[in-house]
């Protein structure tokens, strides 16, 4: 497989579960500083694709290159350390820890066993936590137990935990699911701010939201890519209207 200038190059990726091909010979490239949105009907393989990139699921065939380094055989923690962050669909935060601790645990230092034993909360950590907390709008809730946050705030906290790692590729699975209208607006602004200097892949169903944030849209259907291009191109594509957007 040749090297490319893309941040993420997925080529001929296939994964089958008991013969069912959830992802079928899929090829996808994501550029530097690009915010890509993936849409598609349920069961199209969107979440599976993210699972494959971050190592949660192993590919049956094909390659996943991040900055020209093959990722598909690495253990999950090394994929993360290479610079790929993943947010799960339901907010996945540490409910019993404070917002501050949630962010602190995600700070990329002291990741080994003995590194974690020796880890000290110094000014660098505190500054990083505080600046991320401002970014995600939780600056005055640092001492709050994370389980007490609203659903939207939990989603933001998890995005904040990923920002602590300063990943070059950030993957978000339905970040606005279950959010109020106001929270959706704030999230759109947040994503537009944080996509500067990094690439992002976002899975989303809300078309208005997609329109607001997407640089480029990929439509998936039955494990394959159905269409790819700007929002206008994709919306005008008859095949996309047929399987997903509806008439």
């Amino acid at each position, binding site marked *: 497989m040749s090297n490319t200038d893309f941040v993420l190059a997925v080529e001929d990726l296939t994964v089958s579960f008991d013969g069912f091909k959830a992802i079928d010979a899929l090829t996808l490239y994501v550029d530097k500083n690009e915010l890509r949105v993936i849409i598609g009907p349920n069961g199209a393989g969107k979440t599976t694709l993210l699972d494959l990139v971050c190592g949660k699921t192993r590919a049956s065939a094909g390659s996943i290159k991040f900055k020209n380094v093959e990722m598909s055989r690495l253990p999950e*923690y090394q994929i993360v350390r290479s610079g790929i962050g993943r947010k799960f669909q339901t907010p996945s935060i540490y409910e019993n820890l404070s917002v501050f*601790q949630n962010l602190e645990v995600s700070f990329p230092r002291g990741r080994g066993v003995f590194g974690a034993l020796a880890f000290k909360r110094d000014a660098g950590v505190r500054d990083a936590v505080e600046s991320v907390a401002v970014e995600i709008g939780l600056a005055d809730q640092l001492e709050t137990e994370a389980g007490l946050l609203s659903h939207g705030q939990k989603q933001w906290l998890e995005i904040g935990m990923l920002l602590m790692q300063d990943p070059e590729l950030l993957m978000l699975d339905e970040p606005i699911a279950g959010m109020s209208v106001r929270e959706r607006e704030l999230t759109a602004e947040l994503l537009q701010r944080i996509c500067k200097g990094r690439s992002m892949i976002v899975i989303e169903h809300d078309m208005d939201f997609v329109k607001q944030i997407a640089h480029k849209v990929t439509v998936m259907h039955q494990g394959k890519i159905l269409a790819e291009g700007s929002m206008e191109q994709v919306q005008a594509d008859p095949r996309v209207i047929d399987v997903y957007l509806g008439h």
Partner: protein
Amino acid sequence: MNGIKQWLDRSGMGSVLLLAVVLAVVFPLAFDLFRLNLVGKYLSYAFVALGLVMLWGYGGVLSLGQGVFFGLGGYGMAMFLKLEASDPVTTKIQSTPGIPDFMDWNQITALPLWWEPFRHFPWALLAILVLPTLLAFVIGFAMFKRRVGGVYFAIITQAVALILTVLIIGQQGYTGGVNGMTDLKTLLGWDTRTNSAKYILYFLTVVLLLGAIVLCTWIQKSKLGTLLLAMRDKEDRVRFSGYDVAMFRVFAFCLAALLSAIGGALFTLQVGFMSPSLVGIVPSIEMVIFAAVGGRMSLVGAVYGALLVNFGKTYFSESFPDLWLFLMAAMFLGVVLAFPEGLAGLYANRLKPWWAARRGRRSQGPQTAAAWRAS
């Protein structure tokens, strides 16, 4: 004075200090030497309970085979003491003088090679600390890297406990078999059966136990402690934050094994023998009960749990020889059903709020309560 009180509250060291007073002052004054020696034996189990707090309470991984590590530590110490007790002069009536008596009974005529390091105290000590930790590392690495956890891990640790028991009993000539290693007399020429030795060993156990609690508290308060809790509740989130979850579990398992081994060695020193009945499945499960009764999230609670269950065991078995197992089971079920977080949970969730409310009422209103606290 206020500063010290605040520090105690904040660091959680108040309860450790209270435990230190109970163990080092109250018990020696209240009990005769026979009972104190029993307490010392219970405290050697408390090391295992501490390890289970770290592994099970914090790490979320239940091991039903901690007796293995307790046994390895205990046998390591017993092998050294047995060799010291088997000098050629004392054993001159054997057909091969200078080897442990059980070897002689089993027609073994020379000390096996793997026994040789246990002639020297530093090597024996090293073996007591390193071998159980190493075994835990191998089992933990093999299991946790393959994401084996929960019930499956518990069953495998039980199997290990069973295997070790069968091995010890089967290899009678090398291990003393079902009788274990008995007639242990001196440690580096120091008679461990005298009254003064029993006092010294008791206090050694107390000091080491308190040291272990301080060490575990420090680990709990470090980022590693936070991570253990985090991966217990949200394993994938920790993994996808760039941590190798398996290695953290391996660490917790090794720590628990090391603590158990120290407990085992102290058990042998105080009780004067080691046998397979302390290694197998039943004692391993009993050790889990100590932690469960005390509260699996509380280090100090685990020590009280070990003491209470063992006191109960001694008392019930002395007073109701036919019923004691049922009474023990009733105590365990009662505690776990009524207070799932054990004695420590009972204190933190019921007693402390009740006491605070009582104190608040007595001093009539928050104003005086604040004044009381400021004084």
